[in-house]
């Protein structure tokens, strides 16, 4: 039976290195199948996360030949028999082998003010298809954190203390553009959210397994919203004298 060479990162917080495994090839095999084969037959201590194996849960994120991807969606035959290297996501602290500490993302999510409908508006609501369908793209996010992994603000500049990262721009966009939401998160985006740090290189869009147009449809409209609220002198005057709440909607 034909075999495929895998070089897999083994290690923990104290360091590590690539280890080579030979795995028998099967038809239509994905990288996650190979990891499972290694666990069952070669080394049961190889650590990785996975759940659905169908690209719906976003658990098996890793860097396959240098590219952040879901292992369950990375076909082995794409690599034409060349050795396949699998490393953990670089942006997050390593726990063991392919498992990283992604808890920062969960802390960020908690800082974002939740969906807040008008008080007393108990529904059932009428919301038209055209008003909600544009949000579906954002709601598709499976929280694989590959966009966070590739974002150079987080990855190269260790900017987790100043930028929430693309995933949470998508999250905030879904809230801000919800027809029934009443809270403005522009101040948060401008401050702790650090939207200004994104300089629209679109690397995040490139790796998104759900093909979400993160920069075009989420980050840029949010940047415009922040600019409107924080840098538009006319609006500043209006706010000063009118005391009126900013109109909603984009």
């Amino acid at each position, binding site marked *: 039976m034909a075999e495929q060479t895998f070089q897999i990162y083994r290690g923990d917080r104290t360091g590590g290195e690539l280890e080579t495994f030979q795995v028998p090839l099967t038809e239509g095999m994905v990288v996650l199948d190979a990891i499972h084969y290694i666990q069952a037959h070669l080394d049961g201590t190889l650590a990785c996360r996975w759940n659905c194996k169908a*690209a719906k849960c976003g658990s098996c994120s890793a860097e396959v030949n240098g590219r952040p991807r879901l292992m369950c969606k990375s076909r082995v035959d794409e690599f034409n028999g060349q050795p396949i290297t699998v490393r953990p996501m670089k942006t997050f602290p390593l726990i063991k082998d392919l498992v990283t500490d992604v808890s920062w993302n969960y802390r960020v*999510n908690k800082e974002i003010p939740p969906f807040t409908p008008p008080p007393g508006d108990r529904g059932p609501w009428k919301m038209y298809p055209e008003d909600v369908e544009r949000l579906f793209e954002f709601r598709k996010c499976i929280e694989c954190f590959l966009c966070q992994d590739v974002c150079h603000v987080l990855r190269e500049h260790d900017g987790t203390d100043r930028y929430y990262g693309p995933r949470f721009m998508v999250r905030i966009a879904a809230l801000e553009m919800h027809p029934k939401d009443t809270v403005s998160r522009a101040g948060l985006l401008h401050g702790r959210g650090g939207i200004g740090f994104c300089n629209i290189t679109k690397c995040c869009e490139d790796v998104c397994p759900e093909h979400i147009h993160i920069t075009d449809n989420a980050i840029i409209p949010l940047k415009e919203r922040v600019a409107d609220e924080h840098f538009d002198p006319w609006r500043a005057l209006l706010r000063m004298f009118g005391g009126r709440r900013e109109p909603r909607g984009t």
Partner: protein
Amino acid sequence: MADWYEAHEHDVLVIGAGGAGMRAAIAAADAGVSVGLICKSLLGKAHTVMAEGGIAAALANVDPQDSWEVHFADTMRGGQIINDYRMVEIFAKEVPERVYELEQWGGLFDRTPDGRILQRPFGAHTYRRLCHVGDRTGLELIRTLQDKAIHTGVEVHMEVTLTRLLKDGDRIAGAFGYRREDGRFLLFRAKAVILATGGWGKAYKVTSNSWECTGDGCAMAYEAGAELMDMEMVQFHPTGMVWPPGVRGILVTEAVRGEGGVLRNAEGERFMERYDPKKMELSSRDVVARSIHKEVEAGRGTPHGGAYLDISHRGAEFIKKKLPSMYEQFLKLADIDITKSPMEVAPTIHYVMGGVRVEAGTGATTVPGLYAAGEVAAGLHGANRLGGNSLGDLLVFGKRAGEHASRYVRGLAAAPRTDDRQADEERRLLARPFEGDGGENPYQLHEDMQAIMGEDCGIARTGAKLSAGLEKIRALAARADRLHVSGSRLFNPAWHQCRDVQFMLELCEAILRSAIERQESRGAHWRLDFPDQSPEWGRKNMIVSRQDGQMRVTTRPVPPMPPELARLLETKA
């Protein structure tokens, strides 16, 4: 306090963070008690995320004739009338509120042109009833509950596996287990525990379930003295992927058929005409799964042993809008463009109707302080679950379990006390695979178990095979005492697998013993040696319990429906 474990304390401990667990945690936190939520994975990754088709709720947005009464009747008929009618009544009446509540929490569904929640047809539902968003309804539900839960004061413990319920006398006092990341032992003191741990599809090889679905909660409840019910009822979803080998069993949503998908055999026949000419592809899951099985057995299967499911006639734009993840899944994993070609599908283990026996309105098990909700609980679905009835189950009974567990906690005169000896016993059991060398590999044992269950307790059962399967499972259980792993407790998958396998072996025994006893065919339980329904068995639920360390199988009468509800079943759908 002992120093070999890390201790936590909550009024209510919810084990499992899928739809039922999160809804229960929110309800308990709303009731003002302190709540801990245990996730076996990261938050938001639970198996609920794989639910695709939708939530069945009689909103009557699309078909105004729909009502809770019709939903009640459909669900009872689908379950072949061994369901707990009281659960079904509560469920059918309350699902609509739970759906609208999700919307209040930010969840979004596909809409009708006039702005209401759109509903799609599904198997054995009389009317168009499934609220949905494309084919990722489970993700929408889980994300909505997740964002609600983290802002409701629920304390979340991620990547924690609990393996033993702790008791103070007869009452629940907490739970014990370990954190996956560092292998540290954890002890949770709690006045009440809610099990929301889902099913145990991983006992089978061809399954739509993820690694988490190993039945920990059900097995822990059994070990703690709770009664299990209808364990023989294991659902085959008619349509799982069959090729390539690595994806065999992965779910192909029923929404494909709901949106007009057609099943054909290798000869091009639309074979459902033979088995259910009225409902065709939208017959109940047990019927469709058996029909595909029969076609394959008769030599009319596809090259990889399944049937063809074709939706291409609906056109590319429609398919990409209503079934986007199916489109992507087949394109990426199977090299099939479903807008142009049919899919190859075959039955896959998907869901367990059986589980922990609970009180209809409260989710209380037979152990004081222990509650169960969602897939781990039995009773709502009887012998066969209808598609779309699971997500509603999670919401309705998750909420009720959360509320009633909180009420129970409030009513306690004194807090229960945990006993370190129970925890220490479990620690020894957990640590054993590192000691000595029993030589048994947990992955190998798991594979052997799956082979036995597939072969001897599959879609078509016989008494002889079931008995043979039981012998083999008991032999495997003896081998499971000699499991061995190397390395440390730091994120060690082989070690994690050990206790999972032991739990599943226990549940396999319960499935086999119950299946042997039920000498009839009903719903998902198809006995070739007893091909017909028996009115006598139709009045019984199967009960499994542990007595003096031994597994015992008995029966309980199915609660009889009051006349006003029984009448709802008289008008034939």
